């Protein structure tokens, strides 16, 4: 998910090439944003359980809002963790 731009040769003035990220929920209309589907929500949180920002996942603002709400709901129901500590 974290697409890093390929390294440029030093001194090059070319802009780094980014693969354009798209919102997974816009691409795949049937993909549910649902607190009952923690396996999907897991793609949008870090290993420590934090919600990933849009700039990392490419989610659109409309879906990110819904996603955040469902992640929080899933946390309440102990389906995904609030935090992960060692």
């Amino acid at each position, binding site marked *: 998910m974290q697409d890093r731009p390929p390294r440029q040769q030093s001194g090059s003035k070319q802009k780094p090439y980014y693969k354009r990220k798209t919102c997974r929920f816009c691409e795949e209309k049937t993909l*549910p*944003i*649902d*607190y*009952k589907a923690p396996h999907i929500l897991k793609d949008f949180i870090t290993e420590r359980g934090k919600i990933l920002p849009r700039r990392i996942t490419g989610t659109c603002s409309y879906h990110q809002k819904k996603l955040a*709400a469902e992640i929080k709901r899933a946390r309440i*129901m*102990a*389906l995904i*963790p609030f935090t992960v500590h060692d």
Partner: protein
Amino acid sequence: MNLYEIMFILNPDIGEDEREKLTSRLKSTISKNKGEIIRFDDMGIKSLTYKIKKKSRGQYFLIYLDGPGSMIAEIERFLRIDENVIRFVIVKLDKHVTRQDLEPKVEPQPEPTPQASPSTEQGEVGA
């Protein structure tokens, strides 16, 4: 009348009859307040991702129901009072979700394609 979804977690250590008693009392609370259960699912015992009340497992239930908003306050009260209810969440379903989406799928006939569970949005009632 609105459609609601309720998910709650019960203490997994209570006996079958006690659980039966609790669910039947919940059902009667719903029917007394003019609610109608569309679907009542026992999702079984799952492990919790973090401990709640020193328990690392819980029995999950999922209910879909139709009823007036005044019914929700009564259900919430009931769930809060009972000690064996570890957690619950009540979600009001989106306007475009219909009853047919929620009804239990019929197993015998081979259905063309199993439908994805309807996404749930909108305001949360209680936590």
